[in-house]
């Protein structure tokens, strides 16, 4: 009698608890591996390490130092430069490739798709090592095969050419990957729209502007936002390609500077500050982009 009632109440209880148990693994993992580190890094940004076993409260002075730190600004500019390069160079190339590989007259599409996609399968470190050889001023492939602008360019040895070299490497590695998204978007556009436009006498360019681009808007928004976030988190490629940002921080990025401060200089508080500032920058840029691209618009 007694045990029966206990069992009954257990049954009752578990009906209520079960749903929470089912979703618990995600939340436990999220709290342990995301929530806790996020909060403690925010706390850390108001402290600075004092050796290995103690830290000292410094208020907002990490943030003040950061805004006065020329290397931070240089890294922020380099990162923005890369992000703009991605936006202006890489994504249009990806779209162009997608349109070409979606058109009827290109042969061997599957092979070409694989070929353009393949670079993303190569780890960033190896890409950087390969492009180090390609960009070398005197022995590199680019300067030896194409003398551009009438002289050898110091891709990795002259400050102003370092980020362009990183951007070009980024194009090689990521354009094919973004092409896949665009390709999927293009294949989702109904063929009837083009046929109707053709009947109305629209030329190729008009169809592209009035059918292809508007139909691709959600895909473009996704690719732009994800690429911007990825661009602002740039680290391994320039770290290897420029040997940690050389020469004179010309190849330094925000995450690289964060890494250096955290792991090489043992300034965990300052590194946490850089991380949070980066988070705020990415959040603002993403929200602005989503607004501009009309993702929040109700249709």
């Amino acid at each position, binding site marked *: 009698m007694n045990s029966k009632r206990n*069992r009954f109440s257990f*049954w009752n209880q*578990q009906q209520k608890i*079960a749903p929470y148990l089912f979703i618990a693994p995600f939340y436990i993992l999220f709290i342990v591996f995301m929530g806790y580190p996020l909060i403690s890094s925010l706390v850390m940004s108001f*402290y*600075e*390490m*004092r*050796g*290995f*076993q*103690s*830290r*000292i*409260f*410094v208020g907002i002075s990490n943030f003040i130092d950061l805004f006065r730190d020329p290397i931070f600004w240089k890294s922020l500019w380099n990162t923005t430069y890369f992000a703009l390069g991605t936006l202006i160079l890489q994504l249009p190339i990806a779209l162009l490739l997608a349109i070409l590989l979606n058109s009827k007259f290109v042969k061997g599409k599957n092979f070409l798709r694989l070929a353009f996609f393949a670079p993303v399968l190569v780890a960033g470190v190896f890409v950087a090592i390969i492009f*180090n*050889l390609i960009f*070398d*001023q*005197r*022995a*590199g492939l680019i300067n030896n095969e194409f003398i551009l602008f009438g002289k050898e360019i110091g891709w*990795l*040895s002259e400050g102003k050419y370092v980020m362009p070299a990183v951007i070009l490497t980024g194009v090689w590695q990521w354009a094919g990957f973004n092409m896949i998204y665009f390709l999927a978007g293009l294949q989702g556009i109904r063929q009837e729209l083009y046929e109707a436009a053709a009947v109305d006498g629209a030329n190729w360019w008009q169809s592209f502007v009035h059918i292809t681009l508007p139909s691709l808007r959600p895909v473009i928004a996704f690719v732009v936002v994800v690429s911007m976030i990825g661009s602002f988190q740039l680290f391994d490629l320039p770290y290897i390609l*420029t*040997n*940690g940002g*050389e*020469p*004179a*921080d010309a190849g330094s990025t925000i995450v690289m500077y964060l890494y*250096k401060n955290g*792991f*090489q*200089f*043992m300034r*965990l508080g300052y590194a946490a500050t850089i991380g949070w500032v980066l988070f705020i920058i990415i959040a603002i840029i993403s929200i602005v982009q989503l607004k501009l691209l009309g993702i929040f618009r109700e249709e």
Partner: protein
Amino acid sequence: MRIPYDVESFPLGKGPMVMLVLFLISCFFIFAPAEEKGESIEFWIFANTHYEEYQARVPIFEAQHPEVNVQLINYGGTMHDKLLTALLSDFGAPDVVEVEITSIGRFLKGAIDEVGFVDLRPRLKNEGWMDKLVVSRFTPWSYRGKIFGIPHDLHPVVLLYRDDLFKAAGVEMTEIETWDDFIAAGKKVSRDLDGDGEIDQYAIVLDNKTESDYFNLLLQRSGGFFDVDGNVVIDSDVAIETLEFFTSLFNEHEIATPVYGTWHGDPSNFAAMQDGKILSVLAPDWYVGILKSQVPQMAGKWKAIGMPAWEVGGRRTTTRGGTMIGITKQCKNPDLAWELLKFAYFDKAGLINRYETTRIIPPLKDAWDAPIYKEPDAYLGGQPLGDLFIELAPDLPPRYQNPYWSEAADLLNDAIFNAVTEKQTPRQALTELAEKVRSIIAKDQERWGEGVIDEFKTE
């Protein structure tokens, strides 16, 4: 046996019940401590060549100490970051670890008692090892009177040169004594090969983007970034003069070319050496090892002399790179770990094996008698390279370690590049640099002197 539970009443039925039981059983096996045979020593390594050496040598140590089980782990380049995290979190650090010379500084930050390595000075002193090693090699691993590691190496630097090409230009390199002699010789060999009006054969290759070669020269003159007491001395006269000299090799004398690629070990650099565009390089012992393995086809073309001196009779070498072995404070059996340290760094058979594969000369003076160091080296056209290194070893300059080395080196790289590319004068570049590093240190000291200190450690 009766299960004291009604299986049918398990809320989700038999299947999930079985899964749950299997899950719990496997949890037990995962979390139950593995049964270990006697003592275990975890040993972290970052260099592949060292890992290969110890893989062969550890079984010998385990045979000598049957109760010990050594776990070798090679984390490669990320090892220092992992070690930092383990020491910060007070959990998961190895017992024994090798640390690289440019990475040790960050581990020395904060109070000296909080450094994560065991002070080895008492053990080294009691067992008489201090006098048996080259004493200047303890400086990279010492701070505020404590010694946190045993030096792996000496890493003396020599001038490695293309004997064939210097001879062809009528220069006998063995007669070179000072840097002035070298500049005169360099001007004879630095020339335009293809007639396009630009020099493409240079007497020497130097790194203008990082501190490496400038620091070679600075240490040779007993300079440094920090002095023995931790003061910033990079704006001293000797440091400025040395940077002026360094930039003049590129700009005024035009006998030096910037390193191809990112550093001396890049393949593009080796290609330039084979093409005869680079005729010499400041080479530590390990760099000769790299050349031998990466460009074996250049055997017989190289020869080596001591570095040109700053004045007649001056120091003919410097030191570049280095590794230490140390015991972390998380080690439970430091006595046993100490035995492993001595086996890895002081065992003569092991040291000979090391020279065979990597050309690295040990800091243990007793070991230098071994005939292998006097053997002619085919890569250098029969010159006994080990003999040259050992001749230079007692004169190695000290390299003082400092917790701020990483920040300092990062900024020094910029200063050197700015000076060589004539964006700043050497004096401007180094004065500014010294100010920056001094203010970083002053700021920390100011902070640490006052304010709320939050102790992580609760014990």
